[in-house]
């Protein structure tokens, strides 16, 4: 990883903060929206913001993948599903307030606890960052140490492909399923 000049660090931090805030706000809006279409839109926003965070964290590859896969694939998929299912016309009722408080409070508690725990145990020392993008190392590692998971992932994708089609198929009258 390159060593950034001083100003570069400041800018990095600012970018990080910007995208971070954006991500959080978008995330909140995803969860809060009544209309599913609106939620999808904010999901897209969140995904892009997260990609920005990745870039700020100098994980460029990850950010690129994020935009491609998440933004281009999943979000589009969600839009399709909502259109097919015609979710607009169906508005299920909301939960009651007391459960909602609880249901929000517990995750918050979890967050607080994890953070506390991690901060208490501390992080290992920061390693110095080298120049240049680390693609080379990443690729080498991916295809050596993590070859098995990589291949397994491709098998997984295949399985998902088949499985999704199987599950989502319309049943014909003479279909043995």
């Amino acid at each position, binding site marked *: 990883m390159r060593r950034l000049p001083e100003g570069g660090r400041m800018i990095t931090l600012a970018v990080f903060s910007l995208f971070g805030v954006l991500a959080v706000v978008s995330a909140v809006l995803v969860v809060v929206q009544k209309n599913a279409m609106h939620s999808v839109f904010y999901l897209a926003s969140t995904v892009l913001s997260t990609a920005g965070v990745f870039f700020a964290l100098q994980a460029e590859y990850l950010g690129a993948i994020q935009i491609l896969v998440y933004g281009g694939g999943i979000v589009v998929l969600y839009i399709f599903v909502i259109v097919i299912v015609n979710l607009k016309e169906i508005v299920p009722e909301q939960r009651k307030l007391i459960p909602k408080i*609880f*249901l929000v409070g*517990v*995750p918050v*508690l*979890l967050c607080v*606890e*994890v953070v*506390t*725990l991690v901060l*208490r*145990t501390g992080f290992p020392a920061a390693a110095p960052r080298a120049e240049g993008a680390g693609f080379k190392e990443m690729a080498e590692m991916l295809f050596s140490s993590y070859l098995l998971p990589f291949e397994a992932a491709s098998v997984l994708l295949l399985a998902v492909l088949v499985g999704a089609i199987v599950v989502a198929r319309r049943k014909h009258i003479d279909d043995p399923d």
Partner: protein
Amino acid sequence: MFLLIPLFPLVGAAINGLIGIRFFSRRAVGATAVGAAGLSFAAAVASFTGLLRSAEPVLVKTLYTWVPASLVRLAGGKAAPLALDFAFRYDSLAAVMTLVVTGVGLLIHIYSVGYMAHDRSYARFFAYLNLFTFAMLVLVLGANLGVMFIGWEGVGLCSYLLIGFWFTKDAAANAGKKAFITNRVGDFGFLLGTGLLIYALGTVDIAGITAAVEGGMLAKGTATAAALLLFLGATGKSAQIPLYTWLPDAMEGPTPVSALIHAATMVTAGVYMVARFHVLFSFSGTALTVVALTGAFTAVYAATMAFVQTDIKRVLAYSTISQIGYMFIGLGVGAYAAGIFHLMTHAFFKSLLFLAAGSVIHALSGEQDMRRMGGLRARIPRTYRVFLVGALAISGIPGLSGFFSKDEILASVFASGDYLVWGLGLAGAAMTAFYMFRLVFMTFYGEERLSPEAGHHLHESPPVMLVPLRILAVLAIFGGYVGLPRVLGGRAWFSRFLETSTGTHESHLPAGTEVLLMIVSVGASLAAIYAAYVIYVKRGGEPARRFAEKFRALYRTVSRKYFVDEAYGRIFVGGVFAAGRAANWIDAHVIDGIVDGAARLARRVSRLAILFDGGVVDGAVNGIGRVHLAASALLRRLQTGYIYNYALAVVLGVVLVITLVIAVL
């Protein structure tokens, strides 16, 4: 030889009892019984003659050892070997007794063949009669108190069986019971006396006891106690005060039974026993005095009751009690031979009287109430004649046996100086003559007061009944001459014969006094007879009736036997019943209460147990089930089916784990 005497009746009883009841004809039964009695009498005579000729005064034969000799501790700490043998003794006293028992018994057996001819239980009667004879013979032949007691109990048993012979009749059954129970009280005394003698002397043998007493081994007090206890038994058997109440009731039995048992033999057992143990009684002067006084009072007491009896047999019953009193008077002054002499003559004339009465009853088809008799002298003269002989004998008319025996007793009493007893005896003699001839006059003289059926069937008794009566009449007349006193020319063979058994006792009265006494007593008797004649024949009983009305309370008391039976009944019988009722109350309330209470407690406990089982145990079991159901109902609510609940649970789990980790760290 003398052992055969009891054997024949035993065999006769066995045959008649076991086989005769089922299979024999009346003739066979009668032949067996009379045959047994006859053979027994023959054996008695043979033994008697043998004794006369032999030099030995005493014969003892032991059959077998009943209780082997074992050491027992006596009073005073000595140890003596006590043995009880099945032994029999034959001496002069035994000879006299066996002759009387078998002789009179034989005559009565013959008479019974006629008297009981129409009875249903002919064979049973003769079996019992033979059995009784056997028991009585065992009693008089016993060589020790043990064997004697066997006979003692045996006659008691047979008395019960024979009194209650017609047991379907309530009165007879009750009379049998009364006789046996009253006897039992006496037997208790007998046993206690025996036990006392064992304890003091270590022997129950007659010879042994005689030797011991003569050897001075017995204290006077002990001797008196033992003698009195034995005498208690005698009062029971011989119907003296206080245990006499059974004898009048015993008249429920057939008349031959009354004659044999309650006149001639069983009731004389007590007299025999005292004579047997005369050494003991003489040694204890107190006991002897008690004997004499008891006899005297009983004699007079019973005679008073005979005055007012209306049943012919009852009169004779009280007469028996009275006459036995005379025997005890004789014994009580030490004139043992005189007592036994009177026993013998009494056997003759009393059984004669009973059998003759039986003849009268038989002639009248069962009537026994003298108020419904009268004028029978002309109708049944033969019976009348023998009856008259008996009445004269008992009244002590000179020339007949009763005169000799009674006079000997009275002379002995006078000689002993006991004038009270003599006075009572004289009074009794006069009373005897009176009531006896009252009976004779009411029955045989005067107008006929018969009921129509009785009068219709009136007939003399058959020869089988009359012949024994005649024989007895002869004995009643001449039987006394064996005891003809020296004053009148005799040589007192009887007393001298009995000396070997009863010791010597010569009354030292001047001849003149004795003759005077005789005249006095005879005169009293004659006067009494005349008085009875006047009252009952001349005036038809009127003075008696007026007397009874004037002194109604007195009459009532005497005729009700001085209410002694009622008193006994209240005290003893009632006492036993009260104890029984108390025991029953305890049983019903206390014991049953406890049992019921236990049962109720058990029920309550079981109810508690049920509650416990149902509540606690089942509750626990059901409770477990219910807890499970409740728990599962509760836990089921976790399975809401809502995804967000499951997700929340997962998150909560994570939170929990991390909390723990934080806490640890």
